[in-house]
């Protein structure tokens, strides 16, 4: 837009002139330009003479214009609008001070003469007149002044000036009231606007009548008048009329093209286009400002369509393209600056109906891009023109200058002091235009345009269009030799084309990139781009001509092959690379080897693709397995690889494959320590897999992964290719769209689908025995020892580590030690410790030896063991409950002392161990012999199982505690005692040891019982009695197991058995039988039944006695007696035994009426032994027993 002068770029502003009273000019003109809307420009002229000078400057020419007889020399003068916007006022305001008007006659006379001459001046141009009477309020009071001027003077002034009364304005500049002043200025402003409007309307009408006369036979005049009318309308802000007349002018101008003969052909077209451009600019601006975007764009389309073909004569083609480019640029700038664009287009429907607009046409980017395109056309046609007129003298072009009319040029001839404009011939004009054209750097202009377009497309997320611009920018940079910028941009573009598989476009870009790297002397880049091009899937279908293609030529098979040959000539050192710099030819040699890396995302994957598949996923150490190494190349021609190096993560497995045909194989076999294989041929045929099978062996367990394959070609070139698994190999991004046979990297299709470049090497088989020697079930409570023995049978054990895990069998899986801690179950079985070998206890272990014990997890380190050595330890495990557990022991060790290369071998062992209860403790209460207290709770037995046992209060009861060996091994019993619990509040009963303690450990064979008798006498107090806990000390009887007298057997196990609580209750009646311990046949003895009433009540007791055959007795058989409170009743019988042996006494039955409880002594209690005669053993027996019991105490 900068091409146009300022007055055309913005809507014209009315111009007025102020004459006289120059001290008021600033105030008024400032108000008019800034406060007034629309603004009015004011010319401030101090006196009349300046105005007459201004108006007379153009006076001479003014009258030549409308002369219809002579044809006009041009369409419109270059400075016509400037004249109207800066020199020719529409209104002249004559300012007179009140002093002048009301002063003495000489002053009045001066005023009148000034007015007269002013009127003469403005009448020629119909300029409107405004009289401003400046009244100074401060100099003298207002009221007398007004009076002084008087109506008649004002009337006289108005008549003299021939103006209407409203155009005589009384202005009081120094009024005290600011608001009043503003109001006054506003009124003045509106009067100015009204007068200016009238002036421009009148001028417009005047010219319109000229137009309407139809007498104009010259289209130039028609156009000129149209433009003038439109401009006058613009002055009045009548946009509609302005637009109409501009359009009229435009159409008339378009018609003029074929008919006008006024100027030489080229210049004629130039003039028309220049004017058309101006008109188009005006129309577009008006449309866009009116918010009519669609109309503006449609208008631009028509403008473009109607002038596109008007190329003109061949030597001036470049002028046409330059003009076209400018049209697009200006419209783009207009669109960009028009705020309405962004808002309104988004809601419009596009593209479907005929002739409708598309999205892009609403974006400046589109126009910038096309501007750049046309500028390129201009450049190329200018080059052609230049080449045709290469050596001509350009001296005549220097004096050419724009002439008076828009779009015309003339030669400026100096003749003395006078300059005259001389019309040009077309030839001279072309010289001038070429000289002008040469001054401009079109490339930078094109780049600038494309950059704008690129940015704009970027904002619109139109990637591809943006990249197309980017590509064009890069091409421009390339053509001007800015390879840095070019390369950077080409690289970006190439990545998009790679991604979307546009091979031909990619080919072109790569061709440029190749040249960029050649220009920079970057050999590696050059080789990479060349290789990529040689491996592109170009098709031969599309036939491109050489001319339009980039530096790489058309994308075709022969061209690919040519590039292939060139690059392989270079890498093999057979040919050099001609670098642009210094005309130096580059060759690969020892100092400049080239090494390429191809990773999984590299575009060079199609150059060399390496797939590696292990035939087995799991391999044993030291056992060889097969791997398939497959190589694929999509290069144009076959290539010969001299050497392949296959690299693994375990560097010992690396190997090299030499091509036996290659001359290099002979000289470079001195690779130390690396396996070298030889292959008959390593020719890589294009698009065909080269499959190689090799054995591979790893000694190290763990992952074995193929990292890369390095192909060496020639002595200074190698390609490192990342190995890929066939199972997870991505398609080649460009080749995957090609319709060709799918081939597999391996012969075996299953391997092609599942093959991996990584395999797992197993651990070596352990040559160590791990034995767990637990023999019998463990017993609850004891510290059960599990001996663990590690015996090396072929391996030395370094840094061995023993892990122990206890797991609940029912729980299933292994408890991790942490989980097991809070769980309740784990405490039932506990790993107490690990005892080392004999004589070595925990404190002696070195600090570096790991030993960790938790309840179900242990870790212990194993010292270094030589082959054949063994080491053992004992696990100490304690069961708290009978429970089977699983014991897992695993040994991990390394084969050599090097900690870092620690390759661990693991041995696992497990053992299920049953935990059993060793002893069963039971107890039993008994009453004293032949003494039966009546316990009421026993009579009223409720069928309640958990009822406590009842003991008679203050009576002696017998407690028998028996223990049974429930295991399968003999046990030693140390002692048994009843301890009163610490927490018992008070001892409410006395428990006494019935007999003597054990003299020594008693052997308890499996199933045997051991009993001990205690007497219990409940004494008063509470009815519930706690008897205490049975403490039983025992251990296994290791008679034959441990020959070394193991100290293990020393530990006594204490088993506790808590006795249940009992009820103590007072019995109301106690029945006791009294008879001698034995009787003698025929000897009478007393048999008493004592009934003791312990209550405060009279007890009625019935009794009956059954006869026995072997006894004769005296006494009543049955009766009812009353036993007095707290007294005893004795039933006394004299009995004579009639038979010897164990005899049943007559049985007595006692029934308490009050309690409805009957009592019959048990058979045992009523049995007596009858000797046939007096026995004689009594003395001796007693004597033998006494000393024994003393010793025991």
């Amino acid at each position: 837009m900068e091409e146009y002068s300022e007055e055309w770029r913005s809507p014209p502003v009315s111009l007025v002139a102020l004459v006289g009273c120059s001290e008021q000019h600033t105030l008024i003109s400032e108000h008019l330009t800034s406060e007034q809307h629309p603004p009015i420009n004011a010319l401030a002229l101090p006196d009349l003479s300046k105005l007459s000078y201004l108006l007379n400057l153009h006076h001479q020419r003014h009258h030549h214009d409308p002369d219809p007889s002579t044809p006009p020399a041009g369409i419109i003068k270059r400075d016509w609008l400037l004249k109207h916007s800066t020199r020719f006022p529409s209104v002249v305001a004559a300012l007179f001070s009140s002093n002048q008007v009301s002063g003495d006659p000489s002053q009045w006379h001066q005023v009148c003469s000034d007015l007269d001459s002013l009127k003469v001046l403005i009448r020629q141009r119909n300029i409107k007149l405004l009289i401003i009477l400046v009244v100074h309020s401060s100099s003298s009071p207002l009221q007398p002044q007004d009076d002084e001027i008087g109506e008649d003077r004002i009337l006289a002034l108005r008549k003299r000036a021939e103006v209407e009364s409203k155009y005589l304005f009384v202005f009081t500049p120094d009024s005290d009231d600011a608001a009043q002043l503003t109001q006054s200025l506003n009124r003045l402003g509106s009067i100015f606007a009204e007068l200016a409007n009238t002036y421009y309307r009148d001028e417009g009408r005047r010219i319109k009548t000229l137009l309407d006369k139809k007498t104009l036979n010259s289209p130039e005049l028609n156009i000129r008048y149209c433009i003038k009318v439109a401009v006058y309308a613009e002055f009045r802000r009548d946009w509609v009329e302005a637009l109409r007349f501009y359009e009229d002018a435009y159409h008339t101008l378009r018609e003029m093209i074929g008919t006008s003969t006024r100027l030489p052909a080229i210049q004629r077209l130039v003039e028309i286009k220049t004017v058309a451009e101006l008109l188009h600019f005006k129309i577009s601006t008006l449309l866009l400002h009116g918010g009519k975007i669609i109309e503006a764009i449609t208008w631009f389309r028509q403008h473009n369509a109607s002038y596109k073909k008007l190329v003109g004569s061949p030597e001036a083609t470049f002028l046409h393209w330059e003009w076209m480019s400018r049209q697009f640029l200006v419209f783009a700038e207009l669109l960009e600056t028009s705020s309405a664009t962004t808002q309104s287009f988004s809601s419009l429907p596009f593209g479907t109906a005929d002739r409708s607009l598309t999205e892009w046409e609403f974006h400046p980017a589109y126009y910038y891009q096309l501007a750049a395109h046309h500028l390129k056309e201009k450049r190329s046609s200018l080059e052609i023109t230049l080449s045709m007129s290469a050596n001509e003298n350009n001296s005549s072009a220097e004096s050419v200058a724009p002439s008076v009319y828009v779009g015309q040029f003339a030669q400026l001839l100096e003749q003395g002091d006078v300059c005259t404009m001389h019309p040009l011939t077309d030839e001279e004009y072309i010289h001038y235009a070429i000289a002008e054209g040469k001054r401009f750097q079109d490339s930078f202009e094109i780049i600038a345009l494309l950059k704008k377009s690129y940015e704009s497309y970027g904002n619109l997320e139109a990637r591809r269009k943006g990249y197309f611009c980017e590509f064009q920018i890069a091409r421009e940079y390339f053509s001007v030799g800015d390879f840095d910028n070019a390369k950077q941009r080409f690289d970006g573009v190439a990545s998009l084309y790679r991604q979307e598989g546009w091979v031909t476009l990619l080919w072109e870009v790569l061709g440029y990139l190749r040249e960029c790297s050649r220009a920079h002397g970057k050999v590696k880049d050059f080789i990479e781009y060349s290789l990529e091009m040689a491996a592109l899937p170009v098709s031969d279908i599309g036939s491109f001509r050489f001319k339009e293609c980039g530096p790489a030529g058309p994308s075709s098979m022969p061209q690919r092959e040519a590039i292939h040959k060139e690059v392989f000539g270079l890498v093999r050192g057979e040919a050099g690379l001609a670098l642009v710099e210094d005309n130096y030819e580059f060759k690969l040699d020892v100092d400049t080897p080239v090494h390429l890396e191809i990773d999984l995302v590299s575009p060079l994957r199609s150059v060399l693709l390496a797939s590696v598949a292990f035939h087995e996923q799991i391999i044993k150490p030291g056992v060889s397995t097969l791997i398939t190494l497959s190589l694929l190349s999509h290069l144009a021609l076959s290539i010969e690889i001299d050497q392949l190096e296959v690299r693994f993560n375990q560097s010992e497995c690396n190997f090299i494959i030499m091509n036996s045909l290659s001359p290099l194989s002979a000289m470079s076999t001195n690779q130390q320590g690396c396996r070298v294989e030889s292959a008959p041929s390593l020719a890589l045929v294009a698009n065909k897999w080269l499959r190689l099978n090799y054995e591979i062996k790893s000694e190290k367990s763990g992952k074995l992964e193929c990292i890369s394959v390095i192909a060496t070609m020639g002595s200074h070139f190698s390609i490192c290719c990342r190995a890929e698994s066939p199972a997870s190999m991505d398609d080649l991004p460009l080749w995957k769209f090609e319709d060709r046979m799918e081939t597999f990297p391996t012969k075996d299709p299953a391997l092609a689908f599942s093959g991996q470049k990584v395999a797992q090497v197993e651990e070596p088989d352990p040559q160590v025995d791990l034995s767990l020697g637990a023999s019998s079930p463990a017993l609850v409570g004891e510290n059960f020892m599990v001996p663990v023995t590690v015996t090396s049978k072929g391996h030395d054990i370094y840094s061995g580590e023993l892990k122990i895990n206890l797991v609940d069998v029912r729980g299933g899986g292994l408890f991790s030690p942490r989980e097991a801690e809070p769980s309740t179950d784990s405490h039932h079985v506990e790993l107490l410790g690990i005892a080392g070998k004999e004589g070595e206890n925990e404190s002696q272990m070195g600090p570096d030896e790991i030993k960790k014990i938790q309840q179900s997890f242990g870790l212990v380190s194993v010292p270094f063991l030589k082959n054949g050595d063994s080491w053992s330890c004992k696990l100490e495990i304690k069961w708290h409950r009978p429970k089977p557990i699983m014991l897992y022991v695993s040994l991990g060790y390394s084969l050599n002392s090097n900690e870092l290369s620690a390759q661990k071998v693991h041995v696992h062992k497990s053992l299920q161990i049953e935990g059993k209860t060793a002893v069963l403790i039971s107890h039993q209460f008994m009453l004293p012999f032949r003494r039966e207290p009546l316990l009421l709770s026993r009579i009223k037995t409720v069928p309640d199982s958990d009822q406590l046992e009842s003991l008679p209060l203050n009576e002696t009861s017998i407690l028998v505690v028996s223990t049974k060996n429930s295991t399968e091994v003999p046990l030693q019993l140390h002692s048994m005692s009843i301890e009163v619990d610490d927490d018992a509040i008070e001892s409410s009963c006395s428990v006494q040891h019935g007999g003597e303690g054990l003299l020594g450990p008693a052997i308890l064979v499996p199933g045997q019982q051991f009993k001990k008798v205690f007497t219990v006498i409940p004494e008063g107090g509470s009815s519930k009695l706690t008897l205490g806990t049975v403490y039983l000390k025992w251990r296994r009887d290791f008679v034959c197991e441990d020959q070394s007298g193991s100290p293990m057997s020393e530990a006594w196990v204490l088993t506790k058995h808590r006795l249940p609580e009992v009820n103590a209750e007072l019995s109301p009646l106690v029945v006791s039988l009294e008879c001698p311990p034995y009787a003698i046949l025929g000897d009478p003895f007393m048999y008493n039944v004592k009934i003791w009433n312990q209550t405060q009540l009279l007890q009625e007791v019935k009794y009956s006695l059954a006869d026995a055959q072997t006894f004769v007795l005296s006494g009543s058989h049955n009766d009812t007696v009353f036993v007095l409170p707290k007294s005893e009743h004795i039933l006394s019988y004299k009995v004579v035994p009639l038979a010897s042996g164990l005899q049943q006494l007559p049985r007595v039955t006692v029934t308490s009426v009050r309690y409805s409880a009957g009592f019959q002594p048990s058979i045992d209690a009523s049995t007596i032994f009858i000797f046939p005669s007096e026995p004689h053993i009594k003395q001796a027996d007693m004597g033998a027993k006494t000393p024994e019991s003393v010793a025991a105490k």
Partner: protein
Amino acid sequence: MIVCVAVVGHQNNPLYIQSFTEADDALKLHHIVHSSLDVVDERVNNPRKSGPTLNETFLGLLYPTENYKVYGYLTNTKVKFILVTTDLDVRDADVRNFFRRFHAAYVDAVSNPFHVPGKKIISRTFADRVSTIVKSFGLSSAD
């Protein structure tokens, strides 16, 4: 005159592109076809703008550029057809008709059991058929 037709796949990769031009602009046509994919994307992603043509396969004029006009067509399987013409005055009906016939030819080509979907179309029959359709473009008798 039609100067270029193209079939563009799902990943915006060219499946078939053929130019029918005597001038040195075949490569430029590739660029134009590629750039036009932006408009197709925009039309497909913002169906709001296409308004009533929601289910329409014919995308209409994509954009005019330089001396060309670019038309688009989107099949139900999201394969794009692009047409570049140098004709200034093109009737929508002609373009629709062209695309309809082109679509039929494409369907026949990809129905070939030896054709792998998503790969470039290299069928000679298809190429011949396309050039016949291209030649008859604009001639109303060709329907």
